[in-house]
């Protein structure tokens, strides 16, 4: 039975494990959060609390999902805005949760519509007992353009609102980024200048998930119409990891709460390796429930054991230095595919993909139903390995190109 200490310290606050609910429908009130804590979540970012003047009026239905073959929820589209309960109810829930779960981390997500409301909300959630504040600068489906991702793509405005929050509270604070922007670093830096202690990334990506082909309306349909709104789930993980990596590269040692498509301990480990200290989850919970944290925690403990580390802090950002600009990569060699004929089931997918999508190097023995790589044509792209359904194609022989720098040795190449 594996037992590892999963605790992390993020912005000076200790989390029993790095797994948090993200500010969303999954942390909407006391009962939901209580259940999540009971199942084992280390922290909760309570659903974003807005100014009293901003009335939430949601649409129905409000979700859509992207499927691939038999796999539902590859991606998920969500139209919900921020907390619909009254400010008083939300503050009361925060206070009660903190009282009953003092060892867990409670993060208040807030969203103002001007400096005054940001400052006021920061003060109120602090008084309610929150351990930390997350500024929601990034919800892409707000009905006000003074709120959400329209704010988050304006560095100057972000900075001013961060300053306002800092005036209202001394709590550690992270600013939540929108990915609907070319360079997140600019906004992240502005937030840090405004007083943010860390960054949460990413919020959802503006999307149209599906179009109803008969009605010719985007999904979900709300009385004959639809709107662009936030996309999340496994499909966005690559985008999230990329933004986090870019911020960690531009702003060394930046503390980040990673968000975007985390469902398994492996996803979580990836976020940690690119520099996240905590990981926030919503879509996985919406599909499978709070219980997914059990395997996230246990799986991560096993990974720690395999990696021979006693603290997750030993892993944070460990991949950052290994992700470099494309122009700095070693372009001196080719690695050829190695085909395991015993594993091969003779489907010929490598042959098809190599011909139609690569360099016509994979040759096909019709009688034996086995592929063979012609090294004269192979460029070592390894598309064949990616399409093989049985993992029969691996990295094989390494050969230096004619253009390689002289004196290079194969033993120095790390695959």
């Amino acid at each position: 039975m594996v037992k590892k200490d999963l605790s992390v310290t993020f912005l000076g606050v200790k989390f029993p494990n790095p797994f948090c609910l993200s500010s969303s429908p999954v942390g909407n009130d006391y009962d939901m959060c209580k259940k999540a804590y009971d199942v084992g979540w280390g922290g909760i970012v309570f659903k974003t609390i807005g100014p009293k003047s901003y009335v939430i009026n949601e649409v129905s239905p409000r979700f859509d999902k992207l499927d691939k073959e038999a796999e539902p929820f590859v991606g998920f589209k969500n139209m919900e805005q921020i907390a619909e309960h009254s400010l008083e109810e939300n503050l009361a829930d925060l206070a009660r949760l903190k009282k009953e779960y003092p060892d867990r981390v409670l993060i208040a997500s807030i969203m103002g519509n001007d400096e005054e409301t940001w400052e006021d909300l920061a003060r109120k959630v602090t008084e309610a007992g929150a351990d930390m504040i997350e500024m929601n600068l990034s919800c892409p489906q707000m009905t006000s353009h003074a709120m959400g991702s329209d704010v988050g793509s304006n560095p100057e405005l972000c900075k001013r609102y961060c300053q306002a929050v800092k005036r209202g509270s001394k709590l550690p604070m992270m600013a939540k980024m929108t990915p609907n922007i070319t360079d997140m670093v600019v906004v992240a830096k502005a937030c840090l200048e405004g007083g943010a202690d860390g960054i949460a990334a990413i919020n959802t990506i503006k999307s149209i998930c599906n179009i109803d082909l008969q009605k010719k309306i985007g999904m979900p349909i709300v009385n004959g119409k639809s709107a662009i709104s936030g996309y999340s789930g496994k499909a966005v993980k690559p985008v999230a990891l990329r933004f986090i990596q870019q911020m960690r590269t531009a702003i060394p040692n930046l503390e980040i709460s990673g968000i975007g498509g985390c469902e398994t301990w492996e996803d979580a480990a990836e976020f940690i390796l690119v520099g996240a200290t905590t990981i926030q989850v919503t879509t996985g919970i919406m599909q499978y429930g709070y219980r997914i944290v059990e395997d996230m925690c246990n799986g991560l403990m096993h990974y720690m054991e395999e990696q021979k580390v006693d603290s997750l802090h030993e892993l944070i950002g460990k991949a950052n230095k290994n992700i470099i600009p494309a122009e700095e990569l070693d372009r001196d060699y080719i690695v050829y595919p190695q085909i395991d004929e015993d594993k091969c089931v003779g489907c010929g997918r490598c042959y098809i993909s190599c011909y139609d999508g690569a360099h016509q190097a994979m040759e096909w023995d019709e009688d034996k139903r086995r592929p063979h790589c012609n090294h004269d044509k192979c460029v070592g792209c390894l598309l064949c390995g990616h399409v093989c359904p049985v993992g029969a194609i691996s990295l094989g022989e390494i050969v230096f190109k004619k253009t390689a720098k002289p004196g290079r040795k194969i033993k120095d190449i790390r695959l």
Partner: protein
Amino acid sequence: MSEKYMKEYEAGYTPRLVMEEASRCLLCHDAPCSKACPAGTDPAKFIRSVRFRNVKGAAETVRINNILGAICARVCPTERYCQQGCSRSGIDKPIDIGRIQRYVTDSEDAFKMEILEAKPLNGKKVAVIGSGPAGLSVAGILAQDGYKVTIFEKEAKAGGYLRYGIPEYRLPTPVVDREIKRIEKLGVEIVLNHPVEDIEALKKEYDAVVVAVGHNKGKVLPIFAGKRFVKTAVDFLHEAKRRKGNIKVPQNVLVIGGGDVAMDTVTTLKLLGVPQVTDVVYETFAEFKASKKELQGSQEQGVSIIDGYVPVALKGKKVVFQHRFIPAKLEVKADLIILAVGQYTEAGLLGFEVNKLQEVTNASGKVFVCGDVAHNGEKTVVYAVRSAKEVAYAVKKYLGGK
């Protein structure tokens, strides 16, 4: 007790499940499944269509290649054909191709698709004798090319072994009706209650005659000849299907035979509520002829199957068997004995001996044979379709078509 018999035994896929199964498909290059289908149904292509969410396209592939696609989907012993070559077997188990095909053809009906079309009549007339799988197929294929085809059927309804042989739980009558209707819509006329007594008259009236009478009679082993409590499986299955399972069967039935017809018989008996069904089989399990699926189906129903025995004597209602390889004897007494020991063609009325059919065909040039009577190979629907394709090609060539 006909309820169980009347209900299709295997449930069809839901959209979700068919996608799961299609997603298991490796989408092979030069796919072995497609190469292994005797009728050229091209499963690799229609499974790929399902996978890429084009069920209508899948239905077109099935229907254009196999005019009895909805029937083959249900009754084809796919383990011997398409599924045998399936590359997925190298990982776990083959794709359930028959069931995907069933989903596709069920969708074809749900969408009310009319995929096949007949060209304008070309002035040539073809007579087909028999409306079983081979006769229907050859008629449908020729009709698409503009031939005016008339099928002569001795029974009151069309379909032959499809209607009167394969049990309801495996091939529901409405499925057969729909397939026949599709073929009739192509302009094929089916003349019922019309046994052909004089092939010469047909030869005069039609430009070509196709004999597709099938192996329409069950064989009787000499020791059982003339016994009142002995039936052939062909007759038994015919009666069960015609009367929708409302037949009287005694409590203790012995079946002799181990092919798919035998499996259909024993399973039917069980579904009709017969408590004691014993099947004694000539082949040992190692040599078994029935498809694994049908064997498994009968075992699930609780049939006692005894392998490796030959019937050697009949004492009253007691059959004495001798094991083929070991010194062992078996005696089984039963109220009813059903023989599923092979079939043959009775076509005396046609005016020539069946074993001389090939000669007759070759001599006249105008007469063609199709289906079970045309070859000594597999007696399956898919082979009937294959045979129909070959014969249709030969007829067209003979009549100067392309």
